[in-house]
């Protein structure tokens, strides 16, 4: 039986690795995708920082066992901010494509 922690850790690791790989590409679209994957990984990571528990509500006193509610609050903030940032990055990438005439991150085709 694979543990919950192992699954989470692998998922975060794979997301970050793919994200970093995409981030190092030279086109804006893969870079934005890479940023998105990294922000997913960060959100999962933040979510698991209060330790992983199955079947425990984030309410103190409702049950004998409870999950730390703070990381859930924090991850909500991080998701909202990450969403806004991604939206802005995409808009900027489109604008850059219009203004500069290509989708290279340096603004010019490498020859």
């Amino acid at each position: 039986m694979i543990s919950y922690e192992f699954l989470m850790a692998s998922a975060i690791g794979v997301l970050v690795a793919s994200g970093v790989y995409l981030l190092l590409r030279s086109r804006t679209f893969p870079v934005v995708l890479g940023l998105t994957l990294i922000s997913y990984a960060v959100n999962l990571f933040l979510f698991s920082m209060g330790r992983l528990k199955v079947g425990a509500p984030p309410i103190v006193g409702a049950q004998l066992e409870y999950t730390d509610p703070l990381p859930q609050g924090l991850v909500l903030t991080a998701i909202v901010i990450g969403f806004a940032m991604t939206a802005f990055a995409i808009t900027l990438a489109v604008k850059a494509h219009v203004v500069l005439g290509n989708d290279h991150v340096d603004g010019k085709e490498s020859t």
Partner: protein
Amino acid sequence: MNHFMVLPVIIPMLSALVCLLLGDGLRNTKRVIGAAAILGTLAVSFYMLSLTSSGQVITYGFGDWPMPFGIVFVLDRLAALMVALTSVLGLFAYLYAITGPDTRGPAFHFLFLMQITGVNGAFLTGDLFNLFVFFEILLLTAYVLVVYGSGPARTRTGMQYVFLNLVGSALFLIAIGVIYAVTGTLNMADLAVKLAQVGGNDAMLVRASGYLLIVVFGAKAGLFPLFFWLPHSYGAVTAPVAALFAIMTKVGVYAILRSTTLFFGPEQGFVENLVVPYLLPAALITLVVAVLGALASTKLRTMSAYLLLASIGTMVAGIGLFNAPGISGALYYMLHSTLIMGALFLVADLILSQRGPDIRDSFEYGPKIRQPLLLGLLFMFTFIGVLGLPPLSGFLGKAQILAAGSSTPWQVSLWAVILVTSLLTMVAVARAGTTLFWNTSDTLETRSSVAGWKTYPIVGLLACVVLLTVFAGPLMAFTQATADQLLERTSYISAVLGAP
């Protein structure tokens, strides 16, 4: 309750929202609202300075949650000083902006005020995650302000600026996650207590997260080796935005100073003096690289951005000495250099607009400047400040940092680097001045504009620098007391958590 403490955040935020609701029209109304908001913030910040000068640390817990569970604002000498500096710089940058640059795109007043909101919040907050949130507020507005005014150069650097800072935000969150997982708190005062008690099993985790945090702050400050984004971004943005951005790098410096003194300082168990040994070498390398960059620049604005970087190097060197005179000198130098750098970017804009749209601020043979005496005087006066020559305050700050470095192991390298780079800066500035003002044809550029009202904010900033020099005595007493308060820590911690 100390409700006034949220005013430096609330005033610009609400005014920004009003400006947004007013839409695209009513430009003059928005100009007045913005100016009133910044003046209000300035007044509050001076009240804060007077309150904290007695050494008391004031806290404001949101929702009155018991500490350390709620979000808290903490006002100590350092926070008051930084908020006041932001307000002064913001006021003059804004006054410059409303002489015309604010017409180049929509929502300028909203963005400018939100930027001030984010910066003030970052200085006042006593909670690590809240610091992240304010970082995001100031970054998100900065992303838009970087590309404000459009154009290929701004779009290109803007894109790189956004991508880099998004990665920085991800690293910041990871660091916060690890710190919370190990210590169970994000309150900075509580962290100072809990990080000292971390057990051996988690030693590597907290150390790694500490390094990550400093990488994020270092990237914001533009410290070597994380400075590469700064010269091109700052060299391309609209002048009043560049002037305001002079405070943005100081947010990074502030975060480094706060974290190294409060929770990565001495007697902190496994994170004891985590980054202090690396700060001074990094600062000196920054200084050397920045001055070489200034020598190699082909445009006045790029050179100004490199000189901004050099000033960061100087003040982080003072912090890196990690003694009270060093930090005090660094703070005084920060007051000076932030204001003078703001003035520098504005002067560069005036020179640029009088040389016409063809060569702008490139160091090339070009048309004569329309008002050579006025701009020449502003240029000379500003650069006396930038170089740190007497009689202006930059000299006093640098001298204090040098004095703080004497009789430490770093004395030789610190003195050598600071003095030699000052000389090289002088060479770079002399080359810039002679090219811009003397290597000219006899014809005037027909498309150039007269400086007019735009001169006054620059004169205002320079007058503030003169005031810094005149009142150097009381100001240095204040920065000295600030440094003592930072190093002693207990007043900050007990103000938040209650006396032990």
